[in-house]
């Protein structure tokens, strides 16, 4: 299921993004914000990652926050496998930090993520902003937001990524 899917039809929403990037910037991040929490159902954390079945699933934003209020809006009321979603904005990371998903939006994040390689944390970066170290990397193809998956990195952190998600990725590193 690792073949690359090529988008043919474009939604009006995204067409707007492609033709007018300056205006579309927030919309692109709105999509990324919604994807960020939607990754969670397709990922399986080791049992030790959660203190209890109802413990919150924490999404950490390290460094500059490109989403702002959009992310908070997107996750409001959502639950993943019974876990409510919590957003944390942090300045730096270290092993053992209480994060389940970690988004590093800038080039500087790559270095920080290297320290987290063996942690059960789903790291997400944005390739269009130089972020190449994450297990999942947002890419923009033909004006559409897609993502690439580094499955090997995820396995190193003890995470299992659903084949459904792998099937949608533009590329999968094994």
């Amino acid at each position, binding site marked *: 299921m690792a073949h690359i899917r090529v*988008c*043919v039809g474009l939604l009006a929403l995204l067409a707007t993004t492609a033709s007018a990037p300056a205006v579309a910037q927030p919309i692109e991040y709105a999509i990324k914000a919604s*994807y960020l929490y939607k990754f969670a159902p*397709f990922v399986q954390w080791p049992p030790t990652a959660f203190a209890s079945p109802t413990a919150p699933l924490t999404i950490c934003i390290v460094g500059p926050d490109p989403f702002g209020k959009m992310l908070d809006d997107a996750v409001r009321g959502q*639950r993943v496998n019974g876990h409510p979603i919590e957003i944390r904005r942090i300045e730096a990371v270290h092993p053992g930090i209480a994060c389940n998903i970690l988004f590093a939006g800038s080039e500087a994040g790559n270095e920080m993520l290297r320290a987290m390689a063996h942690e059960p944390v789903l790291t997400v970066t944005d390739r269009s902003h130089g972020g190449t170290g994450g297990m999942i990397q947002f890419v923009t193809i033909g004006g559409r937001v897609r*993502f690439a998956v580094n499955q090997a990195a995820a396995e190193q952190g003890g995470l299992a990524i659903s084949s459904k998600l792998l099937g*949608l990725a533009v590329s999968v590193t094994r």
Partner: protein
Amino acid sequence: MNRSPFLRRLMTALARTPAIGIGIASVLLVASLGLAYHNEDQTRFDKVREVEVQARVLAASLAGPLAFDDETATHEYIEALKASPEFDAVGAYRLDGQLVAGFARAGEPLPATSRAGHPIVRGNEIIVAAEVAQGGTRLGSVYVRAATESWARRAGRYLGIAIVLVMACLLVAVLGAFYASVSAANRRLEAEIAGREEAEEALRQAQKMEAMGQLTGGVAHDFNNLLMVASSGLELLERTTDPIRRDRLKDGIRQAIERGAKLTQQLLTFARRSPLSPEVIDVRARILALQDLLERSLREDIHIEFDFADSLWPIEADPSQLDVAILNIAINARDAMPEGGTIRIGAHNYPAGRENKHDMVRLSIRDTGGGIAPELIDKIFEPFFTTKSVGTGTGLGLSQVYGFLRSSGGDIRIESEIGKGTTIFLLFPRSSQSIPRREIREGALSRAGHDATILVAEDDEHVADLVCEMLRELGYKTQRAATAAEALRILEESGPFDVILSDMIMPGKMNGLELAHEIIRREPDLPIVLMTGYSDAATSAATEGFALLVKPYTMEALGEIIGRALRGECRPRQPVDQ
């Protein structure tokens, strides 16, 4: 037949009217319609579940594409369902309810928005809207509309069953009708068989009477001779005083009377209407008993000889039919010898051998007459075949012989030579049973000083006087009553009596049999002896088990039966209902 009672009742009911068969067929039809309806319901339920499952499978597949806006993948999944004709419309919707992709084949287009909900069955359509979710996170929904089986397909599916069903119903109805007609035919057949049995019974009696008719001439002639002996003997008795001569005359008269009595007794026995009942018979004794009747029914110019082998095997046959058969053959022999001749009746054992598989007793009746032409031999046993002139024979005689032999399991053979005579052989199978012994009659004439008192009920004064005289001679005291009512009165006033001796046919309200019933009611232990000269009355008394004296009887017979009555051996077999 080992049919269960229920089945038998059902079959009987079926036999009564084919309507029941049609009724069963209708019940079958209604039951199967009900079954079909239930089946239809079940099928729809199953179909709903099937569509639900399909929708869920689709929802699971669409979780990723819907979550990450991959329309291509969404399209591909939905297109895959398009290949199946059962889906009329399929759509994928985002979480906010907006349509992402889908198709609508027939009927109304896809709804613009949709949310998950319970399945809806609307006419021929099943609509299922299932949630798309992953890891408990709702991501959107799918909409699936499927057509239930079309009426045409359903009709096609049921048509085959319906044809089989209708055929089965038809079969039940036809079988019912058929069984009813067969039963009706069977009933008719049974009635016919019963009718035929009656007719055969009547035929047997007719054959007997035919033989009787043949006898009558000879018997009447014989009676005239006996009466002649008696009347002339009496006349001579009055004229002579010589005691030796008187004794001789009295002996002659007594002998004539005894012979006459024996002859009428044989005629009465012979003519009695009796059902066919085979008994073990000693052929020799039976034929010798018939001797008087034979001699008197044939002419003086015909001589009868007997030739019986020693220790003949017993046979099993109806005795009176055997008598009739012998008489019929003898009468034919008589008629074949107009100039007189000899009839030789013989019987020999005929052991199993080349000609017969079993031991037989062979009875032969040979005459010295003119013989039978060879071309007629095969015909003589046919009913109503006769060579005699109209009015002298019915042609039933030998057919009776043939029928009797067949029903006894025997056979009949004829040897005849023109001018020399005819021999008829009757072959009877040997019986494995032995001949029942007759009771030895005790000497009853002793005047042992009985001192018992006997009430004699007899309407005929002369007979009553004679009977009382004989009883006194035997040493009994007697009292006489002329009617049944008088007998009951005397029984009450002058009793007790030791034996009641009553005639069966008496004037008045009560006959002898009714008198006997009344006496039994009053004094159950009092012995009763009935007497009659009438054979039907004798039969009814014998049926009830009463001791019976058949008139005319001798003093010896009277003494014997009274003796038995006094010893308590003369009781009705069964209690009499009153």
